[in-house]
């Protein structure tokens, strides 16, 4: 039964038609959760004595970092599937995941840096977290740049898949190394959500909700981008032309 799905996924057209009804729901719920969560985070969440209101930034920074990281694995997995099974759809997912991941990583970097100013006094502090996110950003940029460098689509997809896999293998090594380097230099590890800072259930639930909202938003945007890329790649086919353009009748 599962294999049926797998084979059907080989057809971009089937995927496109199957996902069309999902889109409005995904959009609605993900935006609802993010917007709602933001309102709660801004106006209703409690704050800590040490950090005051700047803690509200965490409700963006942590979900963005988590989903940015997860997106890389989604991208690498898609690349692997595309490389091994030569599935068109998997290559499309890999390609579109990269810029989404890059934007989320940039958001995580920006919010992490801005959060640092009122908390520690500087916009940038070289701690393990921020440095790892910065390196993740470079990894994404590499994939985006490699995708754009090739004229031939198949070459672009295969090369990017290899790069994604190499990156995926390296990410745990990189993160562990950076972590080790910084514990060597800064014995006090700076945890955003240590026991001392979380002083209410609302904070935990809000954080979890925002993480869920970001994941949902990622799912929606990944699908939307995949659908758009499918239309672009299959633009010469009949079904795409029928979908996007009503052919005019030639004058008699």
């Amino acid at each position, binding site marked *: 039964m599962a294999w049926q799905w797998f084979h059907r996924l080989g057809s971009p057209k089937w995927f496109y038609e199957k996902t069309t009804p999902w889109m409005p729901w995904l959009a609605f719920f993900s935006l609802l959760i993010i917007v709602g969560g933001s309102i709660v985070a801004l106006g209703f969440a409690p704050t800590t004595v040490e950090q005051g209101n700047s803690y509200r930034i965490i409700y963006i920074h942590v979900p963005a970092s988590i989903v940015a990281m997860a997106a890389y694995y989604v991208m690498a997995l898609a690349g692997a599937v595309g490389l091994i099974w030569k599935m068109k759809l998997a290559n499309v997912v890999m390609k579109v995941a990269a810029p989404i991941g890059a934007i989320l990583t940039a958001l995580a970097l920006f919010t992490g840096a801005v959060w640092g100013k009122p908390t520690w006094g500087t916009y940038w502090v070289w701690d393990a977290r921020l440095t790892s996110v910065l390196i993740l950003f*470079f990894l994404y940029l*590499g994939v985006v740049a490699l995708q754009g460098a090739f004229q031939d689509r198949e070459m672009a997809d295969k090369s990017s898949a290899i790069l994604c896999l190499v990156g995926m293998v390296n990410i745990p090594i990189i993160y562990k*190394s950076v972590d080790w380097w910084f514990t060597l230099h800064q014995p006090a590890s700076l945890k955003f959500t240590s026991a001392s800072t979380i002083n209410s259930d609302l904070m935990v639930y809000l954080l979890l909700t925002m993480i869920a909202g970001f994941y949902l938003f990622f799912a929606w945007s990944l699908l939307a981008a995949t659908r758009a890329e499918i239309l672009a790649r299959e633009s010469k086919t009949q079904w795409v032309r029928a979908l996007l353009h009503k052919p005019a009748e030639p004058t008699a």
Partner: protein
Amino acid sequence: MTDVSPQNLSLRHSLWAMFKRDMALVVRHRGELANPLVFFLLVLTMVPLGISPDPTVLSTLAPGMLWVVALLATLLSLDGLFRQDFDDGSLEQMVISPQPLYAMVVVKIIVHWLSTGLPLTLLTPLLGVMLALPSEGYLPLLLSLLLGTGSLSLIGAIGSALTVSLRKGGLLLSLIVMPLYVPVLIFGASSVKAAIEGFPYNAQLAVLGAMLAIAIILAPFAIAGALRISVNN
């Protein structure tokens, strides 16, 4: 001269032939060999000029600077790793030959390391003197670079193979490869710093050795795959 008909061409013979050919090319272009080394020397000269000639400042910077610039010099040499063979068509011959591409890739990287990583490593004691590296730092610097430059060649070759068919692949190559170099840099520089501060550095060297082992086993797969793609242009 051994008979080179296909029946006699064992794997060992063909790899050795390739090794000799590439080394001969290196010797023939030995002017180009100097480029990364001169770069190494030049940039490290900039450090006292740009930051401070004070020996105490220099000695704190030295371990990291020596490693960072060694890394950059290796990056510089990567673009040419496969490019010549790609341009004159011999890379295509390598890819379609019956000999395993994995093995040929390993040979190519060994040649690359012998012509860049190893000379770089041997040059560093001299540059350590220029940067006021404390005496405890020399041995760990040599050992860490010896182990590390191998990994740098292997990881860098992945980037070279992915970008060899692109005209302006240089900057893209750096972007791809630099994040992957971070662990090697961290443990390499750390081993030198640890020695200077009086701590043992065996752990860092062991990690570098482990990275080299993993790289030598896994990287050629990625490199071979990338070469196959690049050649089918």
